[in-house]
């Protein structure tokens, strides 16, 4: 039996992670389809910790029943077939709506201390950060540009290479730490 890879703990309190999990999954699928384990690794890369299958799949099933995502069997070259999940148009609309809502909530929570007004014009621009982006993983709406680009690259690699998930996640960590150290 292959040993379980070292699981990275979530960067945020478990209640926050639980509350934001569905939005985070949609973020992971935004750039392209992923299989279940790929979603788990992408979530780990976003700072949500790698969810156990028992937590992840019921949420995927719920999102599927709500027509937010759909799934299909994909035969990969040189490897076993797998089921991949993809964001639907309904899912994209829901993601945009939830991003705005999260932005507004974060603005309310941190606006008074950091001078950002709640519901500022930034929430009309998808993906713009409203919080201090030195936090690893940033926030769901973005983070620093380097972090965002790294996240995109990681997701692309996980989608294209069936067995490189672990290496991809390790590189994500290195990229983010390099970004933080470089400031």
């Amino acid at each position: 039996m292959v040993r379980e890879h070292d699981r990275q703990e979530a960067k945020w309190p478990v209640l926050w992670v639980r509350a934001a999990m569905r939005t985070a999954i949609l973020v992971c699928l935004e750039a392209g389809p992923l299989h279940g384990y790929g979603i788990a690794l992408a979530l780990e890369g976003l700072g949500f910790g790698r969810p156990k299958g028992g937590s992840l799949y019921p949420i995927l099933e719920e999102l599927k029943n709500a027509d937010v995502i759909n799934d299909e069997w994909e035969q990969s070259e040189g490897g076993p077939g797998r089921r991949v999940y993809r964001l639907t148009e309904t899912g994209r609309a829901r993601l945009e709506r939830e991003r705005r809502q999260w932005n507004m909530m974060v603005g309310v929570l941190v606006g008074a201390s950091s001078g950002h007004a709640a519901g500022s014009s930034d929430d009309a621009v998808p993906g713009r950060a409203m919080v201090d982006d030195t936090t690893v993983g940033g926030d769901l709406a973005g983070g620093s540009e380097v972090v965002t680009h790294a996240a995109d690259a990681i997701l692309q690699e996980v989608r294209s290479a069936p067995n490189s998930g672990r290496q991809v996640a390790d590189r994500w960590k290195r990229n983010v730490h390099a970004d933080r150290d470089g400031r």
Partner: protein
Amino acid sequence: MMMKSAMTAMADVSVDALTEEYRRVRGDDADAVWAAEAACELCERWHVDVDRACRVLEEQCTTFRAIIADADLEDIDSEDVYEAKAGAKTGNAGFRHGASLNEMFGDPKAWAFGRVEEWREEGIDAFAYERPESMRNVTVTALKASAPVYVVFWLLMLASGWSSMTWSLALVPFPVMSGDSSTLWSGDGLFPLRDLFMPFVIVLMIGLARTVYRRVLRNISHMLAVVTVGVLAVVAGLGGAMLSEWLLPPARVNAAWMLLLAAVWALSGWVVARLWREPSRRSRLSESSPFVDDATWIRDVGRLLRERGDITDGAARRICDEAEAFSARSGSDLVAEFGTPAEYAHRFRETSVRARREMAGCVATVMLLTLIMGLALLAIVGGQWHGSLVPVGVQGVFYVMAVVAMIDSVRRYRHAAILAKR
């Protein structure tokens, strides 16, 4: 049936005791009603295990008491406090102090839904779905349920033959009268002997069909369960007709036999229940065990998913396949990654599949009854129906009940479909 009755009785006692606790907090019957509705919603609507439901309601009652105690201490003058305590002691109905439970904790349905969502989110196995009945329970239930059905038949015969039937025909079972058994039910209180056992056979077949459906659904698939029940119904119908032709002579009996058999079935149900012990259920420990191997885990998850009734065969297979694939990639075993079979199978939110299946069943039943009623009406209108309309009347009653059930099932399906997409 005894064990189930005992368990149901215990559950009833627990819930009754709980609602009484709620009522005692401030002597308000409305609080007991809230608790009863919440308990019903948890157990009937969401298939929550009774023990779990009682536990969460007890915890809620503790919170309720604390809120009331705090409110008493804070701002109530001594006269009100005296009245509050007196009201609670004497169970003075109608005395209210403070907000209603709806205002404090929300509507019972919304409160129950919130608890269910929490348990699913946290992977707590709080659910207990309907299981197949044993043959003993099916038999005892059929015997006991047949009694009122025979009484209904007797009443209808009394009503239809009011002007012509004598009281002796209605109340005294005469010896079997030889005659042409193909004669339809006559209006003078006589009917064919071969129809005497039909209501019991129908009730027994319904119970048997339900338990066979649930067994095949749990162990194999929904599709095969439907086919099996269909075959069973056809075989039972044809077999029953042939048996009655073979075993019973062409004869007629009077209406009082219905009343006699009602008493016989009721007494038989009581006797059989006492003599035929509930068989010990096969252990289902593996479903809640954290020590199962992967093969057992997959088997149990599949069974539990199908047993829910709201997961299709394809979805159940897909869920198990995905679990295996994820586990292989992560390098953990299935229990470590997904929890026990019961925890995982009960984590999935309710879908509209069960409501859709029930709706389809109701629609099929109504269509079949419509066909039968249509043929009967054609025969009546065409002058080919000779005799009493009691069988048509009984069928009409069942037809109305089936239509009402179908309308209700459509409403429930629409509600479930909206809930599933939330």
